[in-house]
């Protein structure tokens, strides 16, 4: 009857269906091979000797000491980092001062430094052969190959995480709300806790989440600084390496599986934040 009905409209702002399916297929294969396969391997290798092997591995004193060490480090490093991030964001977004751009570059700097080089820096600064390190050791306050060194290494590699999540959000929100609170007679702290903090809480939580994942998982910097002393300075990731190098495969992959589950939990919480509170996160996080 009509010729027009026979020609279907050709969409001009997307690809033809065949190309679409091909691209989706290619992406799926890539994700399966490069992301999912390694993740699945961790759990498969951990369960190679069944649950008995997993439980035996978790009972090892070295494994338990490493878990305790990692939890302690994260429990101290993350709040310190959050405090720094909030302080830096407040100073940077609420005031106008010289050298601000340079300061932001400095805060981002740890991202472009190799973790091993970060560890090296701490060894050079606080190691036994430096003046400062020698003095600290003489006064019974060793930093390298001890707890404070691991903490400093963790702080270095996680340094920008919280600050760079909340700075864009605080820039977007401006300072008018805080100024209004102050004119209405609120004190500085009250303004912060009742006006600023609620505005940035989801972005802060997001930053804390990423910071915590990195704090628990850092390997290179901690491996250099800690000396990897079993039961004393070994963290979960460095213990994974030691078990692996001793051919204790199940023990290595069991600890790795615990870390992988923490990573999955992190991803889950992160996705929930992105879906539920997208409008309160930095613009680049809203997808």
């Amino acid at each position, binding site marked *: 009857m009509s010729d027009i009905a026979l020609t279907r409209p050709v969409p*001009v702002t997307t690809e033809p269906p065949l190309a679409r399916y091909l691209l989706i297929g290619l*992406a799926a294969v890539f994700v399966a091979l490069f992301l999912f396969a390694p993740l699945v391997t961790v759990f498969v290798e951990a369960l190679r000797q069944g649950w008995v092997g997993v439980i035996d591995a978790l009972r090892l004193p070295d494994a338990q000491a490493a878990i305790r060490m990692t939890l302690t480090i994260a429990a101290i490093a993350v709040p310190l980092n959050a405090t720094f991030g909030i302080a830096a964001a407040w100073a940077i977004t609420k005031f106008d001062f010289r050298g601000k751009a340079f300061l932001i570059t400095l805060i981002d700097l740890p991202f472009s430094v190799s973790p091993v080089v970060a560890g090296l*820096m701490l060894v050079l600064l606080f190691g036994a052969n430096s003046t400062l390190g020698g003095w600290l050791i003489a006064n019974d306050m060793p930093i390298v190959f001890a707890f404070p060194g691991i903490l400093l290494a963790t702080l270095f590699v996680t340094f920008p995480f919280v600050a760079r999540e909340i700075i864009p959000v605080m820039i977007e929100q401006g300072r008018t709300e805080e100024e209004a609170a102050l004119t209405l007679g609120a004190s500085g702290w009250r303004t912060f806790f009742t006006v600023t903090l609620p505005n940035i809480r989801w972005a802060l939580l997001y930053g804390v989440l990423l910071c915590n994942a990195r704090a628990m998982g850092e390997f290179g910097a901690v491996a250099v600084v800690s000396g990897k002393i079993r039961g004393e300075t070994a963290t979960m990731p460095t213990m994974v390496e030691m078990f692996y190098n001793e051919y204790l495969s199940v023990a290595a992959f069991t600890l790795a599986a615990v870390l992988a589950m923490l990573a999955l939990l992190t991803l889950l919480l992160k996705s929930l934040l992105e879906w539920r509170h997208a409008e309160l996160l930095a613009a680049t996080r809203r997808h």
Partner: protein
Amino acid sequence: MRAGILRSPSPLPGFGLSFGIMMTVLSIVVLLPIGALLGRGLMIGPADLWDMVNSRRIWSALTLSFRAALIASLFNLVFGLLLAWVLVRYRFWGRRFVDAAVDLPFALPTAVAGIALTALYAPNGVFGQALAPFGLQVAYTEVGIWVALVFIGLPFVVRTVQPVIEELEPDLEEVSATLGARRTHTLRRVILPTLTPALLTGFALALARSVGEYGSVIFIAGNIPNLTEIAPLLIVIRLEEYNYDAAAAIGIAMLVVSFAMLLAINAIQVWSRRRIGNV
């Protein structure tokens, strides 16, 4: 303090406190350690530094770290763009799941990724056995290092390009189509140039991360001197020998390489922004 540093007055309180906390932590955690490395370099002196870096083993390690990072980041440039495009433009079952999974390399500790990839690609692993009939060996070769660095760098490209694709105005593509351009032509001449700065930024971030990567690489690399020994590992080896000067020399070389790279790629970005701005 306030009057000296502030450029314009602000009615808000807390400048001294927040600025003080920021500078204290920044100094102890970042500035002092970097100063210690650079200071060590100055004490050794440029001539001796050069002598220490100028050995075959160190050059091999530095060029390997750089070359493998470059290859992996180029690979990620292509597949990162593909993933970002598919995630933003197409609707398919499991899209949100894949979207969340892209961040796995950020969340998974590098040592865990390292032993998992090694188990997969080792001669007795699932992928290792599958590739063996074709004469391909991945684990304990340079290809293994590429695989580890592809894993590490992927989210950088996807997460930088994805928001830019989301912001693309459909008008541009419609105009291009009404003017008679075929879809491939529109993609190449309209969309790709718009995405170039984001692609380069993602590439730069992946590259900077990959050059210094340690945890995921050392298990799969095999660590044969002059062949598959990366620069960060060489620093660790020198430190274990208590040869702090040699370790510092390699560390300074790596710092120089990564800063030079960031500067170069920043320049490309400025150039490409200006070019697009003029169109």
